[in-house]
């Protein structure tokens, strides 16, 4: 399908009709910040949002998700949630993070629960209009995104360009009725916007290339910065909760009130929490804050890179915003590791 053009009223009418037919989640204002929530009215959609408090990960790997129901007698029945949903207005860095989750949960022991949700999801991306204070997406190669979505919206002057890349995107856009095609000038302006996105989302930047991070970490295991920064760590796990590229979880059984059965659920967990690496009997393999703080950066910057081929950070800056003691910011951390480092 060719790239289409929507005026603001056309966009609003389209979104309004989507809301009637689909479960549409999109960025909305909440106090002076933004959250992804179920859209009840097109007017609530804020495609001009800078960043949402939680990433859209919460729809694909929910904070608490039933895996199975069981009876006291030990009969387990799996639970899957394949209800179709539309994630609308997802920024490029979050699209990139979803692509990472797709890889993580899709390869080496594919996770059926994740995949079931994912296959029922239509992803409508949206280029960033207003950068957040802590974003550094340009450094992570996620200021713009070329794949991993069904439909991409880009605001050019007063109109939106809608670029569908999949049959699901086509189907969604078809619900807008007849639309004008974008012309050569529109596409040229979009190209320029993509070029400028590097500047817009690169005001804060790493002093090295993304592909140099694993090697930088490789030689930084004993760096004093881990202990220094983690002295201020509350082990609260906020940096993990808001991260689009943190996927660790815990699994717990909950018994129903009638005690005859219950639900096995997985919940978000965090390697920054004190008990994460504790084993039965009480031994804790990452007892000190500095060990946990370092582990998180290593898992993201090196271990997952070695294993899955991506650095599990997309530069959204949410961790830096969420951290009450200002130690979670990857830009500060990595640039500090780069100081006096001739490698």
């Amino acid at each position, binding site marked *: 399908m060719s790239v289409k053009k929507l005026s603001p009223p056309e966009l609003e009418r389209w979104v309004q009709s989507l809301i009637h037919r689909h479960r549409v989640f999109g960025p909305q204002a909440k106090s002076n910040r933004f959250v992804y929530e179920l859209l009840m009215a097109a007017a609530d959609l804020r495609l001009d949002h800078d960043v949402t408090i939680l990433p859209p990960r919460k729809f694909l790997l929910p904070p608490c998700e039933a*895996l*199975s129901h*069981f*009876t*006291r*007698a*030990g*009969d*387990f029945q*799996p639970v899957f949630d394949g209800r179709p949903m539309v994630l609308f207005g997802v920024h490029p860095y979050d699209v990139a993070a979803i692509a990472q989750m*797709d890889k*993580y*949960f*899709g*390869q*080496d*022991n*594919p*996770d*059926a*629960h994740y*995949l*079931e949700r*994912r*296959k029922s999801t239509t992803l409508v991306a949206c280029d960033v209009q207003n950068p957040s204070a802590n974003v550094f997406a340009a450094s992570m190669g996620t200021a713009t995104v070329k794949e991993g979505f069904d439909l991409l919206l880009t605001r050019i002057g007063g109109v939106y360009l809608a670029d569908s890349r999949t049959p699901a995107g086509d189907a969604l856009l078809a619900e807008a009725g007849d639309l004008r095609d974008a012309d050569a000038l529109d596409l040229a302006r979009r190209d320029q916007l993509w070029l400028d996105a590097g500047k817009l989302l690169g005001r804060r930047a790493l002093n090295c290339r993304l592909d140099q991070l694993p090697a930088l970490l490789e030689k930084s*295991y004993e760096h004093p910065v881990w202990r220094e920064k983690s002295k201020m760590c509350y082990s609260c796990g906020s940096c993990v909760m808001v991260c689009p590229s943190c*996927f*660790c*979880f*815990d*699994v*717990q*059984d909950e*018994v129903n009130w009638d*005690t005859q059965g*219950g639900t*096995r659920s*997985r919940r978000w*967990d965090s*390697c920054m929490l004190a008990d*994460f*690496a*504790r*084993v*039965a*009997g009480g*031994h804790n*393999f*990452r007892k000190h804050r500095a060990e946990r703080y370092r*582990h998180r950066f*290593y*898992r993201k910057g*090196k*271990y997952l890179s*070695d*294993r899955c081929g991506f650095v599990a950070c997309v530069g959204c800056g949410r961790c830096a915003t969420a951290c009450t003691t200002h130690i979670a910011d990857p830009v500060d951390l990595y640039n500090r590791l780069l100081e006096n480092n001739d490698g």
Partner: protein
Amino acid sequence: MADVSKVKDLYLPRPASVVSREMMTSTETLFDVRLDSGQELDHWPGQFVEVTVPGFGEAPISVSSSPDRKGGFHLVVRKTGRVTAAMHDCPEGTTLGIRGPFGTHFPVDGAMRGRDVVFIAGGIGLAPLRSAIQYVLEHRKDYGRVSILYGTRMPSERLFVDELTHWTRRDDVELLETVDRSDGQWKGTVGVITTLIPKVKIDPAKTLVVACGPPVMYKFVILSLYDVGLSDESIYVSLERRMKCGVGKCGHCQINGLYACTDGPVFKYADILHVQEAI
């Protein structure tokens, strides 16, 4: 991405039943468990399963019996957390859930074959090692000299007491035991497990060591093994972590870049020599 309809649910346990149970010590119980489907577990020595006690959750437990044992498998469960305490309350006939077997195994089918084998077990470390010991004794001619070194804190903590006696009586296997503290009745060696190592005839060129015990044991055991000339290539260890999912997804059992559940729990020492979080 993988085709969802063909993807098996990684987290769904298979129903299994407690065939019998036997108290081994004040904190350890041996369970004989059988899959309700009638299938064999089909594990290798050193692998573990995730055991569900419905309503209490899951715990990773090593399989203690040889894969040659048909009609069920053994699990030694130490009462130490919520799930294992609940398991201790499970009478015969209780339905449990089993996922797995998971992880790497002792190289009974590889590096151990044709070599002298020294098993070093500390405390409950005998539970996973027993699977390999039984297997090696069942296929005795495939291996050279076989020695078992077993250390516990106190005589009352010894596991598989009858089997220990049986191994002592066999002339094709050497069993050496020690306890950290005697109870007055104990007539054997007293001291840490490393005191047993010089007592075994070890030809470094053809010996393979398989060790399982608490983290603190490894440091000292490995130094003693160096003293008798063993190399990092000839030592295998099993590492304990909190494996929650068993399939490399949940992140709990990570040892630096390795997952205890899929890259381990059995590792060749040479492969984890520079893995700082290993021990």
